């Protein structure tokens, strides 16, 4: 194979890459927050709602989790255009992403809610707290703390999923690759560079989320959290990495 790698395009195209990166980051942030909030609402609906509410929420979650994101996006984007609403592609993209991730977030949070011992709910109710107060102050904080590793993985997936939005002409990072390919025929190198940028973004996102965890949940339970095996897709830490962890 005689191939001369040529990364010189970076010199000319790094502004485009940065612009694309920025759009990807923006989309991720909005979709993550929206999807998370929607997912929590769905989880509460599925655990606390009336039978009709539960069935609707379950149906919604099943639908979004068993159809591909890109089909959901096409449905939304092309559908809205056909109805005459000229939504900007990026808006449709963010909504589709948020809706898609809400299904997964719902299941993660729901598993967390179910894992909170019923004695906690009993004790809180016996102190006079209303059902919504119990949920907000006692159940959800513990649920989210327990499910945090799974949430981090889900968030990284959302960030990576922004990549497909180039299919509805959103000028995000992956779209720049095609741009570079058509003008310099260095598609292979371009996508290698883009892959590297996504890797850095994934790593950065995990770092930021871990920081948020330390701020939101100041308890010294990191040691026990690291032992939790509920981390689909993330390698389990080796035992030697567990800190000596001061337990007074």
């Amino acid at each position: 194979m005689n191939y001369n790698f040529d990364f010189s395009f970076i010199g000319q195209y790094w502004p485009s890459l940065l612009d694309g990166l920025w759009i990807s980051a923006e989309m991720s942030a909005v979709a993550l927050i929206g999807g998370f909030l929607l997912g929590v609402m769905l989880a509460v609906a599925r655990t606390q709602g009336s039978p009709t509410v539960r069935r609707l929420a379950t149906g919604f979650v099943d639908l979004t989790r068993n159809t591909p994101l890109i089909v959901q996006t096409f449905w939304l984007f092309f559908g809205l255009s056909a109805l005459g609403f000229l939504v900007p592609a990026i808006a449709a993209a963010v909504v589709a992403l948020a809706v898609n991730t809400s299904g997964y977030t719902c299941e993660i949070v729901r598993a967390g809610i179910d894992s909170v011992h019923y004695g906690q709910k009993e004790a809180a109710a016996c102190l006079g707290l209303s059902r919504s107060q119990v949920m907000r102050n006692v159940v959800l904080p513990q649920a989210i703390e327990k499910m945090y590793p799974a949430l981090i993985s889900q968030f990284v997936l959302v960030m990576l999923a922004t990549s497909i939005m180039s299919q509805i002409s959103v000028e995000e990072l992956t779209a720049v690759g095609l741009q570079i390919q058509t003008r310099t025929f260095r598609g292979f190198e371009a996508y290698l560079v883009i892959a590297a940028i996504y890797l850095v973004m994934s790593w950065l996102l995990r770092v930021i989320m871990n920081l948020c965890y330390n701020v939101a949940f100041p308890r010294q339970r990191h040691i026990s959290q690291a032992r939790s095996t509920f981390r689909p897709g993330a390698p389990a830490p080796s035992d030697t990495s567990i800190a000596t962890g001061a337990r007074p």
Partner: protein
Amino acid sequence: MIMGVTSGQWFFILQGAGWTLILSLLGFVGGTVVGLPVAVFGTSNSRVLRILTGGYVKLIQGIPLPVVMFICYFGISIAGYDLPALVAAGIAMTLYSSAFLGEIWRGCIEAIPKTQWEASESLALGKIQVLTSVILPQAFRVAIPPTVGFLVQIVKNTSYAVVIGFFDLTYSSRVINNSTFKPFVIFTAAALIYFAMCYPLSVLSYRLERKLKRHSRL
């Protein structure tokens, strides 16, 4: 003509669905062939092997699948081969599945209590025998629910192959949409076809997991 789409066009869409199934199968088989060593080496005593497999998994899991597809596609053409998009998509799906399946299965192997290793080693079984006769059979049982669950992801994620022009269900439905401009009809139909493929697997995975939990309480 059903709902503004001709039967010929419907047939076109269904052909795409057929290729979706084929690519899913390719992805699963490839992912198993590559993923099993990844899982086993990921639990080995050799730190080098663990770092290599861990690095491989982190690498694939940190890159979007469309980008992996592009890299495979352009990689094949600059290597001098003129192959259909199916090959590139197949390789990409294999890489993707192997990383995730490898991680899932590694977790299942590590879920087998250390005492099983100790007991079998004390019976003078060699490393490979311990794995094949004691550990892997047990890990296999534990692995079935999440593996079936991941199959759903494979089927859905074949839709990303559309970026390299692979003729799957998403591609065929978009083509028809471009000529009929009936997105709600077409993409709802496509969604329903994906749902019909994925939902049974999701339900199966859930039921298997419940069954496994009940058994393990004994």
